[in-house]
């Protein structure tokens, strides 16, 4: 089957049971998306599918064909400039171990584009599908607010 990831097409031979997360990590070699539970409970595997945030551990790779998948590796510009959300996470120290971070960043982009980032309370609520065991939550909220304004402006 073929998968469209970060603007490139990947031809892969996969078990019908293979999740999009395992397809990305084990077969395409994009290990930025993380496995924290494999059960849709933590958000570490969050990617954008056709622009909306989805849990790649609950998505079968076969069902992702003909759709555009964006992972953490696809956010920075080719010249290396970071996406405003990536930069905001650095600016606000919105992570510690960094393991939940790719999922947080993609989820945050989804949260902003859904219009759920108007207030800190809204961000907290709509970012609650992404567990951060290091508990960088207050800084994640601050980062989303910064990037929200930049994303609106740019």
């Amino acid at each position: 089957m073929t998968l469209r990831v970060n603007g490139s097409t990947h031809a892969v031979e996969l078990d019908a049971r293979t999740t999009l997360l395992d397809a990305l990590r084990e077969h395409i070699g994009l290990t930025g998306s993380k496995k924290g539970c494999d059960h849709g409970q933590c958000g570490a595997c969050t990617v954008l599918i056709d622009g909306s945030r989805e849990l790649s551990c609950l998505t079968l790779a076969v069902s992702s064909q003909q759709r555009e998948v964006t992972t953490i590796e696809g956010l920075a510009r080719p010249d290396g400039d970071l996406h405003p959300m990536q930069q905001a996470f650095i600016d606000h120290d919105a992570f510690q171990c960094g393991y939940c971070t790719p999922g947080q960043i993609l989820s945050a982009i989804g949260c902003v584009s859904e219009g759920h980032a108007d207030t800190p309370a809204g961000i907290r609520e709509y970012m609650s599908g992404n567990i951060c065991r290091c508990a960088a939550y207050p800084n994640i909220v601050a980062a989303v607010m910064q990037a929200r304004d930049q994303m609106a402006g740019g």
Partner: protein
Amino acid sequence: MSETLFPQSSTLGQPVPRYEGRAKVTGEARYASDVRLARTAHAYLHMSAIARGTIEAFDLAAARAVPGVIDILTHETIGDQIRQTPAIYQGGYISDSRRPLGSAEIANWGQPIAVVVAETFEAAREAAHRIDVTYKLHPSLAAGMNSPSATTQTLEPMTIGVGDFDAAYAAAPVKVEAHYSTPAQHQNPMEQFATQCVWESDRLTVHEPSQYVNNVKFGLAEQLGIGAERIRVISTYVGGAFGAKGFLTQRTALVAIAARRIGRPVKLVATREQGFTVSGYRAETRHHVQLGADSEGRLSALRHEGWELTSRGDAVAMGAVSMTARLYACPNISARVNTVATDRSTPGFMRAPGEMPYAFALETALDELAHTLDMDPIELRRVNDTRTEPVGGLPYTSRSLMRCFDEAAAAFDWKRRTSQPGSMRDGDWLVGWGCATAFYPTYAGNSAARVRLSANGRVHVSSAGHELGQGMYTMMAQVAAEELGVPVERVTVSLGDTDLPPAIVAGGSSSTASVAPAIMAACDAIRRRLGVDGASPAEIMPAMEASGIGVIEEFAETRPHGVPPDSMKGLYRGKTFPVGGVHLPDRVQFALGAQFVEVRIHALTHEIRVPRAVGAFAAGRIINPRTVHGQFVGGMIWGISSALHEHTEIDDRNASYINANLADYLLPVNADIIDVKAIMVPEEDRLVNRAGVKGVGEIGVVGVAAAISNAVFHATGRRLRDLPIRLEHVM
């Protein structure tokens, strides 16, 4: 916060952004399971479904028939390929004393009893589920502390006595006596327990998230019966650890021999559920506390006895009465610790392992005493503040406890508190304010580092410390930059690899206190090499230029105060552990703090919220306020979680975990956390170690649970002495 205690610096004490920040926001950071090895086969564990008994038979036919299956490891198929070795508590390396796949004996639910190796993850998982096991159940089972077949044992070496507790307690005009308990809890780092092993001829490389790569290396060598020089362990990034990745677990040797048997790299990622028994955890504790005081609140008698659940194989106890007995002035003290052996897996370390539960008991009891005396709980701590610990009369190297209380109280606006329970109700919300002391012993251990200075001003610093998210890369870069007078951007760092100079386990909040002095010592050696011993940082690069030398590389090892001289060889054998705290002959050393929380309980729904928390901490020199702030705030959120969320629930019928997943094991999510403020109280302590740091990784957790239970009492008038506190307890 304007005063400067250590000399002003452009690097140390500055909020330098994380060294590895870009790697972590771009997905470039490679965690152990991200490392791509050619021709990797996938392993999947099969765990025991019973807690006590024997395996009578395996039926592996259906598993073997799954297409893609290469090998299945059981105690029958691997024979004695893995040796019996002592556990860490017996002076060895491994986190429990059971030999991996050692026999047909089952000692706990969730014990690895088979490993399937297959071409794909999917095939390995399917085959592992198709393994059929016939068990013979042992007739009796102890799932928890109250089980009749659990066996209790007092740990005599942990017993503490000073003065005459019984007489003083009997004579005390004011008394408090109560029992407390805390539940089993699991670290649940977001990164699961992954291991990849690859053999190249007779050399083994292990990629595994670890808090102590040299422990894994030397322990594995012992288990496999091969020379340690043939093993390399790499752990460049760790996706959270919190104690769960401190020591070698059973899985690593299994993956290593699987890779050797099939002649290919093997990758294991234990599932989240399996992870609940792959490593240790915070065991259940019970406490009995008695306090006697005079009418002014001065303690005359203190007794703290703890009981901690353990496995039948390993008597593990955190025993933090050694700290709770030494926090406040009191002439008559009695304390002891007991283990309660059950049919559960061996417990281990979880962020503030003993400090969290023991502080919950003592600091709640103190609040009960304050209430009995009708005294402000801050003032109760003040009248019992001390410069020397009461058991051995040893001095604190520094102690800023009351300053922490005063700063946190001011930030919290504590003076607006009315003391009567229920008196601060706000409409439908019952409001309570509570506080408690936070403490964490200051530890350090032997460590080594290498620093290379190039004529172009580039610096490379390396040490086999560990980046768990606490900011190790950044700290190492800052210390080297500071010492050598170069901008921090000019420094590169290597860590988490047994090929580097060895360092201490990343535990006991001791990494910076141990590794920073080693880096400083290596920079001293560079100064000496340049003939500018004692020169200021600004003089180094000019001296380097004048010398005409292209590169200088120096190695240094450091042994902290109180660590025996002959322990240095342990550094080179994966046996360096934190020393300090209450275990020194001449002094005690602690980071201290004060925790304040507001709790709101809805009168109708009984929902419990913590709208704000303020902590103030005095932890010596702060190398990087940015990363340290993350440690404090993250720790405080862990504290909230320890009180209100986390509880590993045990099925008494088979000693299994009911909620071994991230949906049912409650953790705080973003919506649970509203306003958490951490204040860094300036403190200079030049005794603790050369860097003047006390360690910040764990203290944030300590005391929050007590502050919350104290606030719940203040809100409702109900004293809740058992964690976690859930809405059904405040109805």
